[in-house]
């Protein structure tokens, strides 16, 4: 396990009495692609700005490679930021933009020229040295912003929803581009987004946040397959969220039926939340399912059909490559392994998961 490059310790931050981050603890490992994911107002951008040095926490410490950098101004931190709206210097050429940080550090002209060439090549914009930022498209400007940041050889690159202003196709291309960049540069990326698909595609680690609290930290697979609470399950991908009662180890009850599962240790007769992904719902003949019902909607989505099935008084969302027409009676079966059991939050505030790996 590589060491902690950034360590946020007991960070609290509020604006005008509105608590944005409450006692946040999080560390970022060297060479990791970490994504802060959550709805707007969850505190993800504030977290990034604290790391970048544009904001100071009300309390708590930020450690960089073990050193306390909480009070250090942004220009003295060994990291660089890519801003959501590019924030290029519109009065300078592309080359001058990229050279900005290097000139301040007093690098030689030949070193700077080499770096500009290298960076433009890296972001596939060879020959753009003398263009002005305003003459470039949004995607190109964002690449220049990335080039401008990485020539300084930061240990960490902070990216604040960098693809938010781009259209869908460009966004997908840029996702691959960013993964490639990350691998070529071998530095740590801290990425902020509200787009769960983006997070799942690119990250090594995802930090799901809501209302100033970390909900879950884990790999994309962990987050998707084993959400720790209803918020995470609901926020990441489509899901069937069901009120249930854990009868005993490996047996859960919902919709007046007993469902075998693989979870243990919840206790007996304890209320829980159950999440089942739509692609894990298996439709079969009515008599073969654990419960049965009727198909109410069918939409063709390309790779699969999206169906809604009314069963047990619940509208099940089902993804399947096999189409069942509306009105067909079907049975529902779920592999025990695909039934994810989660503790119920005792209150809104307690929708918090403290995760220490």
């Amino acid at each position, binding site marked *: 396990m590589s060491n902690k490059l950034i360590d946020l310790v007991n960070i609290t931050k509020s604006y005008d009495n509105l608590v944005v981050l409450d006692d946040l603890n999080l560390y970022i490992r060297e060479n990791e692609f970490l994504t802060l994911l959550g709805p707007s107002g969850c505190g993800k951008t504030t977290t990034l700005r604290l790391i*970048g*040095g*544009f904001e100071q926490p009300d309390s708590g410490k930020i450690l960089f490679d073990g050193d306390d950098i909480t009070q250090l*101004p*942004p*220009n003295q931190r060994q990291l*660089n*930021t890519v*801003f*959501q*709206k590019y*924030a*290029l*210097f*519109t*009065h*300078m*050429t592309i080359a001058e933009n990229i050279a*900005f*940080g290097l000139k*301040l*550090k007093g690098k030689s002209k030949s070193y700077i020229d080499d770096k500009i060439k290298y960076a433009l090549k890296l972001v596939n914009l060879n020959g753009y040295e003398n*263009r*002005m930022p*305003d*003459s470039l498209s949004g995607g190109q400007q964002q690449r220049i*912003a990335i080039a*401008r*940041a990485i020539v*300084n050889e930061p240990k960490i690159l902070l990216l604040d929803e960098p693809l938010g202003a781009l259209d869908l196709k460009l966004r997908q291309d840029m996702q691959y581009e960013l993964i490639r960049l990350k691998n070529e540069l071998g530095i740590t990326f801290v990425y902020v987004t509200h787009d769960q698909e983006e997070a799942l595609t690119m990250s090594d680690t995802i930090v799901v946040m809501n209302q100033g609290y970390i909900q879950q930290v884990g790999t994309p697979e962990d987050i998707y397959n084993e959400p720790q609470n209803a918020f995470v399950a609901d926020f990441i991908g489509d899901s069937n969220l069901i009120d249930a009662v854990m009868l005993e180890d490996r047996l859960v009850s919902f919709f007046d039926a007993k469902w075998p599962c693989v979870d243990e240790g919840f206790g007996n007769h304890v209320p829980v939340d159950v999440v089942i992904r739509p692609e894990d719902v298996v439709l079969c003949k009515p008599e073969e399912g654990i419960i049965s019902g009727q198909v109410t909607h069918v939409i063709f989505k390309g790779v699969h059909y999206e169906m809604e099935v009314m069963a047990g008084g619940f509208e099940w969302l089902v993804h399947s490559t096999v189409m069942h027409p509306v009105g067909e009676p079907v049975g529902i079966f779920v592999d025990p392994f695909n039934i994810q059991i989660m503790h119920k939050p005792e209150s809104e505030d307690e929708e918090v998961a403290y995760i220490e790996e």
Partner: protein
Amino acid sequence: MKNRQSRLLALPFAFWSALFILVPLVMIFYYGLTTKTGQFTLDNFTAITQPEHIKALGLAILLSAVSTVICLVLAYPLAMILSKLGANQSALIVLIFILPMWMNFLLRTLAWQTLLEKTGVINSILRFLHLPALNIINTPQAIILGMVYNFLPFMVLPIYNALMKLDKDVIHAARDLGANSVQTFMKVIFPLTLPGVISGITMVFIPALTTFVISNLLGGSKILLIGNVIEQEFTQTNNWHLGSGLSLILMLFIILNMVLSAVFDRNGEGGMMG
């Protein structure tokens, strides 16, 4: 059809412009290019080379340039402070700032006359405190004071607007790339707000260059700016021909200033045009 209708809407303004801008301009050109007997001449233009006219023009340029620089030095920090305040606070301060402008320009300048006079309010207070008297009424300094006082808001507002339009993340980006606060200002904030500075300079320099009221009231009758010379030709000597000629020369300087501004502005905007 719609196009024609919108053109009709512009008619009142076109009429107004023709009557009150174009006609007077043509008349000034006519007067400037003729003698009292109606013959064509360029003497009214070459009259600018007479020592007293050159001196008045030179002094006007000097005083308005000094006033413009003082305004800039005062206005930029103020605009920066304003732009950092919350919306409510800055609105209040901007209001306080433009409040004097609701009062008549003449009245405000007259007030300064009363304040600065040898036996005026300021000197009375100084005498009461046993401090030396302030003798700046009827000096170029008093004129500069009047110019700065009257035209400062015209410098603050465009710079304030330019600062407000500046994306805060651009400033963050400069800091992020290693610039300290002074470097950030010199390399990013100031260049990006240059268009505001230029329009501020234009809006202060031109009225200062042409003023005759401020120099009349605060400079006594001894200090003549080019504006005073022209005013006297019209109102006292009744030589409209010379007055018009000198006005046109002054207009040349104003046009020159505006061309320079436009050139600088384009440079400031970088390659917008290229």
